[in-house]
């Protein structure tokens, strides 16, 4: 066996042991060493050289990055998640035919979809979704994320929150918690427009706060425009667009002049 490959395998073994012990400090250290070692494999993306060890190298590299992604979720580091995920992605898209698909593929792709949803990057969410074959949409992990996005777009926020109870994988909980925060902000934005006022109890229920204290803290922090009086929350109304009273003369003159100029050119 190739000495480099042996070294990586051994190091990865230690990483996995630390990973199971939830010793994240050691994991991060080992991971950076592993990533440096991986750069010496010629068969990895983007070069994809045909070496005799290609299959083993690709498999172990993919495994390492999969662990890296999960590790970044556990350490709650979204930037690291994004970096590791992009390193992992070529293994899913460009290695079919070289190594068999990973059982972790859909859970991790679903996780990424969830992350994009939490960060409100809906365009990227859909771009990623298009890459999946129709059969993948049946996978519980992917389906979960897709249904969440749908409920989110519709405004059925209750369904988004209840989905936390049916997460397909333990790593999803972290993002679901983040999503709850995004949902609260959305609800607040909607309530502002949809209601004149709400009683404090109703507001608490709608915005999912357990105490009046939390509610008033949230209001002073996020929406200082709202007013609490007589046991009700009053929302500040944005001014409605008034019917126009005066003629926008300058704009009209400009437009008319440009028509005249254009017509002159035609005639």
């Amino acid at each position: 066996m190739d000495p480099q490959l042996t070294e990586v395998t051994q190091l990865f073994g230690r990483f996995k042991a630390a990973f199971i012990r939830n010793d994240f400090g050691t994991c991060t250290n080992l991971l950076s060493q592993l990533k440096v070692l991986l750069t010496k494999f010629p068969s990895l993306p983007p070069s994809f050289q045909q070496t005799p060890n290609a299959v083993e190298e690709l498999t172990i590299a993919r495994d390492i990055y999969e662990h890296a992604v999960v590790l970044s979720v556990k350490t709650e580091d979204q930037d690291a998640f994004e970096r590791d995920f992009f390193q992992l992605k070529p293994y899913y898209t460009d290695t079919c035919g070289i190594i068999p698909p990973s059982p972790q593929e859909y859970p991790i792709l679903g996780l990424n979809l969830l992350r994009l949803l939490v960060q409100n990057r809906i365009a990227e969410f859909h771009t990623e979704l298009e890459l999946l074959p129709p059969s993948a949409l049946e996978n519980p992990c992917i389906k979960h994320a897709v249904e969440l996005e749908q409920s989110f777009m519709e405004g059925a926020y209750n369904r988004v929150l209840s989905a936390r109870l049916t997460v397909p994988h333990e790593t999803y909980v972290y993002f679901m918690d983040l999503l709850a925060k995004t949902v609260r902000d959305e609800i607040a934005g909607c309530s502002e427009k949809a209601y004149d006022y709400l009683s404090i109890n109703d507001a608490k229920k709608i915005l999912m706060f357990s105490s009046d204290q939390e509610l008033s803290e949230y209001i002073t922090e996020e929406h200082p425009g709202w007013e609490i009086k007589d046991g009700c929350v009053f929302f500040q109304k944005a001014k409605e667009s008034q019917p126009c009273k005066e003629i926008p003369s300058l704009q009209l003159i400009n437009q008319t002049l440009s028509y005249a100029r254009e017509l002159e050119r035609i005639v």
Partner: protein
Amino acid sequence: MTNDVEMKEVQAPSNSLSSATASSTLQHLKEISSLIETGAYAKEVRRIVRAVRLTMMLRRKLRAAVVSAFLSYALAPGSEAHSRLSSFLPKDEEHDMDVDTATSAAQGPAKYSLPELEIYCYLLVLIFLIDQKRYNEAKACSSASIVRLKNMNRRTVDVLASRLYFYYSYSYELTDSLAKIRGTLLSLHRMATLRHDELGQETLLNLLLRNYLHYNLYDQAEKLRSKAPRFEAHSNQQFCRYLFYLGKIRTIQLEYTDAKESLLQAARKAPVAARGFRIQCNKWAVIVRLLLGEIPERTVFMQKGMKKALTPYFELTNAVRIGDLELFRTVAEKFSGTFNSDRTHNLIVRLRHNVIRTGLRNISISYSRISLADVARKLRLDSQNPVADAESIVAKAIRDGAVDAMIDHANGCMVSKETGDVYSTNEPQIAFNSRIVFCLNMHNEAVRALRFPPNSHKEKESAEKRRERQQQEQELAKHIAEEDDDEF
């Protein structure tokens, strides 16, 4: 030629007719080749464009015998290009071929060296192979032509080259191996950019976009598109394609307004003959308009020759228009095969919330006050807590401006606001202005698109000037002569 006819008579009378058309096709091909020659010598790209167009008209009449006869006419028999190209041609019509080659060899002129002609032969053979469904030979032939093209740097070849690129990619697409040529296409695109071959750049950019979109790689496609150099379109067809791909990318990335514009423009600009392309454009445009909350007019679906293909989308539109979730679901299931093969399934999933919106809007128009429980029932929301769902859905619709209403939480009902008079705002003025601007732009573009032969304007002027100048000179001479007379 007499030789030819005699032979046919012995074999079968019906063949004589086909051989007559074959020889006339050959004659046409020879005319085209002379067009290319004059184009190449005079460096007039226009002539070569015309040659390519004429070839497309002959496409159906091409036979192996004709093509091979033409090869022997245009290329030196025994030269490398000739032997390579002939090897791609099927040999089953041997008897036909003998005769034609014999006749053409007799008059075969010695102008072999022209690279334009060689590339043209590649193009001809490639088109023939694709039409004959010999895709593997077509692949081999196109790859060989690309290798040859890379070593050529002549502006007059560009037109032919861009056609070759297209068929190169097409032959790989037909054999479902587009991913393989992505690297080649990228390097060709770089080469075309360095050589300022704008037509080639345009074609290759489209091929690359097609290549990416074939595998749903929208991210890469958008990155390439936004970074590739843009310039005024040279070919209408390529521009249509570009608009279509652009529309697709933008749809996926939720930029519906821009997507709609590109897709409709592509559908409008496409030639009438390109029915399949226009159907695709219309399908996507329908979905984008639905996603925008617009309802496409019935005439869109009733266009000539598209009615059948657009039926699933018509029913879909109907479901969205009524705002009936149940109907929407049945339509989506009924045509799921079509939507999957059109790869619009994910977009249709997105439409669900538009259906709800439309339903909600209908409710808000019909009722000035309605309880949330009734809203949930009318929208057929099936969940554990329909009232709470309905409330948050209505709240979001209000925030997004889809309905103009308020929620009365204490009484659990939705209260619609009075709709204001739109004519008291600046809205009509803005709409009127945008239409005028559109018309003026169209006129300007039409004027700009008029084509004039290059420099004809200048030449005419100089001719006039020359006449004027001569006249002046003559007058001057006369004057001097008169003066001379006076002196004496």
